[in-house]
């Protein structure tokens, strides 16, 4: 333990660098003789490319080369893949269509790259890109993916009905039987809106080919540089792993969108080799809107069956998930194993059946986005619960309490085996934090001002730290989901931690240092965290799915165990004591019950001078661990949202928002609160503001901040946060993960609150003023008709 150890609210070490503009992002990389790349992109959602004329572009000032899709194919660079294989209910594999780096013949979404222009400067490359003449033969586009079978075919020959996979989970017959015997059935049509991730830093890549070594270095905006290197060498044939170094330096946010390996990075590596110069490409904001993998986009029909006492007896969900024009790296897992496995929510449900149809459309590829599947599941479950409570005339709190799981571990009918939490306790704390008893008075006060007030609940559970590797492998994952750590203790006692996770906003430099400080009593300033460079760090799986703490942190913990054991053995030897009697306290190794002690740095130095080591001990103090968790982790919480709706305009204001979470052991409360704030902002953004819109021709209408509404600080209330710290028994740190919870739990809380205020159940996200106003009009019309 130390003052900066686990549980300490210490300020972030990385903030100084970021706040003073000293961060080093990919676009900050400058190489000698560097050239600039700009992509020519499709203006059409679906078209045949009939010709590409690069002659005028090649004559433009500063132009070095123009690369076409055929060039990349001819160089033997492979297609992009989806790394998680799933099957339809009839046993046939998912229909993965070829995903070229730059398809030479057909474009299938607006923004798809068609040609790559390399020039001395970016300005010259932009000018020349305009001079590339591409002739297209326009084709009708499919954007209305609910009618996927009727629409134009995205990949003829591969999926003629646009259906990638007709996937299922759960026991349909048993679920149908449960419905047959049910006292009540609640049904809903639910849509999960499509989102654009909008990381603050747009994607960027710098590729450098070293001819002498036949070696490529790629700096890129990646959440998982090792995975990028693996995929680029094993599948895309860019270079073998030992000839490819991938560096993800400071990365300004990812939210999932930087997990995937994109065409531009692969093209950059090819181009650097071809032109013999380093190549930089950085997306502008419009490219980010058009080409970063989008999120969510589900159409769902759900029904829930209850017995006479309002206990859930069955749950049936039919979802159509839009994957866009191509299958992105983990696109198959997000709406299946990361979604349907969470449909039990916090409730005891004996029978669940889910059918998910994954479909193509002429839109940007869709993949995991903060929460990935769990927000979609939570939205369905929690909208259903609130609607059911209204239908039964029960309080939504009471209906939830009636159905909460109380005994752990709990095996759901959809694969998950929940570790302990306390759902009643979370609800109790949330009700207290929001002053639920005072709500009627607050509502009356709003009404006096002509405002409609509503309250909405969301009791979410999610699954983080996706694992164990063997289990995910059996479900189709192409990778293992363990994590690695190396602890290098220097002779002077400072510590370097090499982690296979990657920080792009998660504060690893602080929280991981706290884990070390907790163990050895060294100040966090004496601990440095290294990540994001495949030449420096041992293999690791990167950061997504809130895995850095539970999986990455546990790997560090395990490596620290080994360092501690060795340091203790050495200290015991030096002090002529028994290793079992050595205690580490305040940066000193002491012999229990005596006044014998050595400072931490003295033991470290002794390990490296190696003048006096115990028999058989190797010099040095450096240990590695590869940690594979035994289970997912299960953060859970109850969020309560209070809104005020202006009936005249339909404008919703969130006046009160409480989030009470169980994240297990908390390493740094301030960092956790920051993660929750950010997640809530994104969840509230999804509920109220954000919505990606395509027109019938497949044009992206929300391609800038003029039309895509990002949440701003004044859209958000001051959040009321609290935690229950229920230790997670499945990993040594006892942590559960906090990165996505806010985005997972918030949307249903907001929509439940608005629909409570305006007295209707039907309301789509984002709940724009006009949508809310229209919902109010229709309830008034309905009431007038009664």
């Amino acid at each position, binding site marked *: 333990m130390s003052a900066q150890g686990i549980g300490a609210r210490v300020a972030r070490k990385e903030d100084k660098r970021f706040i003073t503009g000293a961060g080093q992002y990919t676009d900050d990389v400058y190489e000698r003789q560097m050239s600039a790349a700009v992509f020519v992109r499709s203006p059409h959602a679906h078209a045949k490319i009939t010709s590409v004329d690069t002659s005028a572009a090649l004559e433009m000032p500063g132009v070095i080369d123009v690369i076409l899709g055929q060039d990349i194919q001819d160089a033997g660079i492979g297609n992009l893949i989806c790394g998680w294989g799933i099957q339809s209910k009839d046993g046939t594999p998912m229909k993965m269509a070829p995903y070229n780096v730059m398809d030479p013949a057909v474009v299938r979404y607006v923004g798809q790259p068609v040609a790559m222009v390399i020039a001395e400067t970016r*300005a010259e490359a*932009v*000018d020349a890109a*305009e001079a590339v003449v591409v002739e297209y033969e326009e084709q009708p586009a499919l954007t209305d993916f609910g009618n996927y079978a009727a629409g134009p075919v995205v990949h003829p020959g591969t999926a003629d009905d646009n259906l990638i996979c007709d996937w299922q989970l759960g026991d349909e017959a048993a679920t149908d039987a449960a419905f047959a015997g049910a006292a009540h059935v609640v049904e809903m049509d639910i849509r999960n809106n499509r989102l654009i991730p909008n990381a603050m830093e747009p994607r960027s890549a710098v590729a450098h080919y070293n001819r002498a070594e036949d070696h490529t270095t790629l700096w890129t905006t990646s959440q998982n540089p090792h995975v990028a290197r693996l995929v680029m060498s094993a599948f895309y044939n860019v270079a073998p792993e030992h000839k490819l170094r991938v560096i993800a330096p400071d990365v300004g946010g990812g939210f999932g969108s930087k997990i995937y390996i994109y065409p531009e990075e692969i093209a950059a590596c090819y181009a650097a080799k071809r032109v013999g110069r380093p190549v930089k490409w950085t997306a502008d904001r*419009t490219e980010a809107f058009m080409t970063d993998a989008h999120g969510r986009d589900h159409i769902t029909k759900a029904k829930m069956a209850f017995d006479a006492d309002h206990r859930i007896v069955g749950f049936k969900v039919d979802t159509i998930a839009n994957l866009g024009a191509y299958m992105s790296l983990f696109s198959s897992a997000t709406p299946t194993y990361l979604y349907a496995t969470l449909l039990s929510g916090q409730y005891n449900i004996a029978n669940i059946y889910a059918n998910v149809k994954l479909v193509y459309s002429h839109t940007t590829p869709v993949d995991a986005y903060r929460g990935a599947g769990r927000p979609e599941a939570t939205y369905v479950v929690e909208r259903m619960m609130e609607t059911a409570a209204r239908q039964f005339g029960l309080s939504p709190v009471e209906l939830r309490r009636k159905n909460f799981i109380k005994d752990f571990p709990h095996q759901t009918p959809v694969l998950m085996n929940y570790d302990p939490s306390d759902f009643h306790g979370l609800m109790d704390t949330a009700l207290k934090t929001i002053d639920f008893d005072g709500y009627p008075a607050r509502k009356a006060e709003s009404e006096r001002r002509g405002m409609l007030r509503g309250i909405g609940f969301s009791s979410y559970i999610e699954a983080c730290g996706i694992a164990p590797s063997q289990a995910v492998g059996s479900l189709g994952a192409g990778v293992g989901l363990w994590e690695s750590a190396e602890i290098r203790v220097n002779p002077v006692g400072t510590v370097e931690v090499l982690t296979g996770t990657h920080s792009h906003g998660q504060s690893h430099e602080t929280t991981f240092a706290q884990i070390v400080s907790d163990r050895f009593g060294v100040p966090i300033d004496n601990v440095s965290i290294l990540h994001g460079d495949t030449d420096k760090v041992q293999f690791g799986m990167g950061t997504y799915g809130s895995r850095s703490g539970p999986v990455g942190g546990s790997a560090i913990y395990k490596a620290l165990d080994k360092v501690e054991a060795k340091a203790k053995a050495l200290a015991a030897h030096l002090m002529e004591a028994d290793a079992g009697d050595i205690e580490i306290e305040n940066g000193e190794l002491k012999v229990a019950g005596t006044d014998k002690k050595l400072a931490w740095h003295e033991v470290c130095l002794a390990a490296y001078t190696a003048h006096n080591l115990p028999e058989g001990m190797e010099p040095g103090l450096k240990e590695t661990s590869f940690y594979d968790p035994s289970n997912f982790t299960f953060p859970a919480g109850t969020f309560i949202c209070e809104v005020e709706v202006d009936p*005249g*305009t339909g404008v919703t204001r969130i006046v009160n928002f409480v989030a009470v979470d169980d994240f297990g052991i908390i390493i740094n409360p301030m960092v956790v609160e920051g993660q929750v704030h950010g997640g809530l902002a994104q969840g509230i953004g999804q509920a*109220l*503001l954000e919505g990606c*819109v395509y027109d019938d021709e497949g044009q992206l*209408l*929300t391609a800038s*901040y*003029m*039309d*895509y*509404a*990002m949440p701003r600080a004044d859209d958000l209330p001051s959040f009321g946060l609290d935690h229950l710290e229920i230790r997670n028994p499945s990993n040594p740190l006892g942590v559960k993960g906090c990165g996505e919870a806010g985005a997972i739990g918030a949307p249903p809380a907001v929509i439940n609150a608005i629909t409570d205020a305006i007295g209707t159940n039907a309301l789509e996200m984002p709940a*724009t*003023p*006009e949508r809310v*106003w*229209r919902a109010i009009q229709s309830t008034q019309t309905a009431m007038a008709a009664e």
Partner: protein
Amino acid sequence: MYNTTYYAATSLADAAAKIAADGDAKFLSGGQTLLATMKQRLAAPTMLIDLTKLPELKGISVEGDRLVIGAATKHAQVASDATVKGAIPSLAGLAATIGDPAVRNMGTMGGSLANNDPAADYPAAAMALDAIITTSKGEYKATDFFTGIFETALDEDEIIVKISYEIPKKAAYEKFRNPASRYSLCSVFAAEVSGGPRIAVTGSGNEGVFRVPAMEEALTRGWTADAVTSVKIDPETMLSDMHGSAEYRAHLVAVLAGRAVAKAG
């Protein structure tokens, strides 16, 4: 952005001469519209003639029953200037709703009026406060100046010099923001000037900013919110986009006019 050259004009005549010499040159004020358009390669002027250094385009003063503001006055100045706040607080309040601090510290009143974006805010004030727009060539009443979406009575080589607003007996501005851009989706300026009540709407009209005579007439019979909220707006005259249908905008005009009238007191 395409290559361009920058020129800081030294006088109105100098600016006029420069633009006469180069048909593809453009006047530059705060650049908050023009530069953004150029960055997206939607405009490619050969030369930018900066007007913001011209002394004729500066200054804020009260002249009789009018407040006169130089065209190069930045939104942030209008929002914080004591003379504006004293004479027409609702105009200062309107300026404070424009964009973000960066936009307000660069963007100018003249640039906004010359641009006549259907979602811009100043045009509503100009219409409601019987503004007179003085240019390098003459004077316009606001009602004659705005001729359609992004269209004004200005010639290519004509420069807005200053804008004079009648100091109203009372006035208020109700801005309803587009949730994404935060420009006006539908905003109403209500004022009582010597010519009578004025209701001007921006953000919603399919021909840009407009006055609502039926509401103005109703207000002559009594300055009450009810007088305007009962006036029906024809959705056929409204803009419609993904942020607000014509029907919704028509509804908002009435609601917001009522609120502006009530706020003006």
